[in-house]
């Protein structure tokens, strides 16, 4: 029977992919894959033909009888036909390295994984040995994709050189930033790449145990990854030399901060630790620990396989390689866009993203999750690069780009940032725990028109205190969305003008 690929990614399930698969039963061999990441086309199914795969989308279960009658199985039906997926402009413009297999392979098939270049990086690492493996990662220029952008090779080198009875590899899969789903897509769509990356990390630093800390909001990713672990163990890829255990978070955003995550893994409240000591010296259970974001670890296999030079050749400035950018929010073409660093924000949201979903003009774009700055269209020439965003008081974080149209009230967004910090603060340091509460109160006073000038000044002062006085990035970066909203959208903080406008 003809093979038809139907995604099992939650973004496809959320719009009816299971119903589509059910409608195809008996007509084709159904292979469930991850998502290609073109979410506005989900459910996007692909038919295997002698000329290659032909994509259709968005497909509803009710479309299937007509499509079958019109020649779906030969790829000739015209309704909803997208053609060869790689030629869809959104995909054709990408450089897919970390996401090369996602949406193409059966995520739980080791044969698929091997056929598409899987496990070759691990073989290379074994041949190179620990020191040269660390050197390769260092030379690739790979930096932490979780947000901090710290050079991965240096983390590994520090851990490799640290002394400890045990060492650990910890994967941070606590992807809490709104607007991000790259970790989730890999857990659901290519889990073996993470397993391979963690084994390589273990080999490089001398660790025998890995933990993956996955957020509970990703039940499908958790289930798929657990299945992948079982398959890898049965195949002897994981075993006494190096094994991985998945642990599930419990809804605390702050556990995405690495030291809070370690506390949580150890069975405590997810409260941030003061650094030093660095996790590389004293991490999980007091032992030297490599803690990396999921995307970082899942990128390591292709760096080892293809060599550091190839990865390093892509990008701009000190941001080397590719970044899986996640286009989200009020955007026409939302999804996963992996590209070399350097593409401008304007190109991302207008050219590739197609502007807003609502059709209204873009008013603001928040990059980097709840702690990221809101950029107005006048800043759309900013290239996607760690340093370029930092220079404009922003951050690229984990690569989430959330688009808002002109109905957004930026004072409300500033209030939300503070409110989010109230709910999610771990409570360890005062600027974050108390500052966020005072921040909400102050924005409320501004919105109510009380002493607006003085309260705006006070809010700025409070942001300054939080930025420089907080222990971690939660309290330290929450000022970014608040200050950017105040700086670029001052009219929203002037209730008199707001009333006049309404």
């Amino acid at each position, binding site marked *: 029977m003809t093979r038809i690929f139907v995604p099992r990614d*939650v*973004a496809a*399930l*959320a*719009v009816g992919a299971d119903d589509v698969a059910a409608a195809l039963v008996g007509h084709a061999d159904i292979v469930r894959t991850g998502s290609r990441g073109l*979410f*506005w086309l*989900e459910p996007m199914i692909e038919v295997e033909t002698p000329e290659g795969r032909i994509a259709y989308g968005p497909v509803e279960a009710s479309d299937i009888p007509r499509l079958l009658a019109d020649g779906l199985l030969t790829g000739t039906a015209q309704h909803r036909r997208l053609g060869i997926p790689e030629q869809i402009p959104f995909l054709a413009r990408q450089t897919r390295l970390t996401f090369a297999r996602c949406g193409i392979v059966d995520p739980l098939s080791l044969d698929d994984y091997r056929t598409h270049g899987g496990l070759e990086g691990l073989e290379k690492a074994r041949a190179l040995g620990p020191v040269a493996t660390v050197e390769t990662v260092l030379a690739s220029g790979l930096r932490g994709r979780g947000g901090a952008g710290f050079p991965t090779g240096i983390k590994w080198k520090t851990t490799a050189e640290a002394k400890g009875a045990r060492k650990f590899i910890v994967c941070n899969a606590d*992807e*809490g*930033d*709104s*607007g*991000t*789903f790259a*970790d*989730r*897509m890999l857990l659901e769509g290519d889990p073996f790449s993470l397993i391979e990356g963690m084994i390589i990390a273990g080999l490089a630093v001398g660790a025998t145990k890995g933990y993956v800390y996955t957020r*509970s*909001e*990703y*039940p499908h*990713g958790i289930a798929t990854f657990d299945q992948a672990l079982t398959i890898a163990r049965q195949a002897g890829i994981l075993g006494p030399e190096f094994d991985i255990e998945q*642990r*599930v*978070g*419990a*809804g*605390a*955003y702050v556990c995405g901060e690495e030291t809070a995550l370690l506390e*949580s893994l*150890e*069975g*405590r*409240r*997810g409260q941030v630790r003061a650094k030093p000591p660095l996790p590389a010296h004293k991490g999980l*259970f007091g032992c030297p620990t490599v803690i990396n974001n999921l995307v970082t670890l899942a990128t390591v296999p292709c760096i080892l396989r293809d060599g550091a030079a190839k990865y390093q050749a892509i990008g701009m400035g000190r941001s080397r390689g590719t970044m899986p950018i*996640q*286009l*989200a*929010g*009020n*955007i026409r073409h*939302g*999804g996963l866009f992996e590209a070399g660093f350097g593409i401008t924000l304007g190109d991302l949201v207008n050219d590739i993203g197609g502007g807003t*979903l*609502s059709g209204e003009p873009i008013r603001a774009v*928040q990059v980097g999750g*709840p702690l990221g700055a809101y950029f107005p269209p006048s800043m759309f020439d900013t290239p996607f690069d760690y340093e370029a965003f930092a220079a404009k008081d922003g951050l690229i974080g984990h690569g*989430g780009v*959330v*688009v*808002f*149209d002109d109905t*957004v009230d930026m004072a409300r*967004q500033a209030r*939300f940032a503070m409110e*989010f910090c109230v709910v*999610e603060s*771990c409570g360890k340091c005062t600027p974050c725990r108390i500052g966020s509460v005072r921040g909400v109160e102050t924005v409320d006073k501004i919105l109510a028109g009380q002493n607006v000038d003085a309260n705006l000044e006070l809010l700025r002062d409070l942001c300054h205190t939080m930025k420089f006085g907080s222990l971690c990035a939660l309290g330290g970066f929450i000022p970014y969305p608040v200050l950017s909203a105040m700086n670029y959208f001052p009219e929203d903080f002037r209730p008199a003008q707001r009333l006049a406008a309404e």
Partner: protein
Amino acid sequence: MADYEPWNEDRAQAVIANHAAIEGAALPVLHALQAVFGCVPLDAEPLVAAALNISRAEVHGIVTFYHDFRRKVPGRHVLRVCRAEACQSVGADAVGAHVRAALAVDWHETSADGAVTLEPVFCLGLCASGPAALLDGKPVGRLNVARVDRMLETLS
């Protein structure tokens, strides 16, 4: 729709014992209890404390720190609606307000007929398919008022 067991101390002891031996057992133990009983009741705290050799205060601190752990058994269905920025940009505030009005509950509350517990969630990773929700663990995207009404009609 989940079928939870009524609280039973012996059963709880057995569930705790299944996970207590691993390193850093607190979260796995609490998740396991919630999976069986639908929540982590106060009565569970001394049992967990004894099994993990930590104080009851510490257990209480852990349970209350994490948003996931409920203190009461939820309704027959759990609806988790995303309230984060990406979903806000496509109307999540209106969806959230409508759900609360339709069920006559606030966040974290259960409808009077015991059918639905409404929980806020900050991001489900469905940020280009919002407003999004998880209904009994099943993802739902592109929510609007009409779709919420259709969804709630199916719940009893």
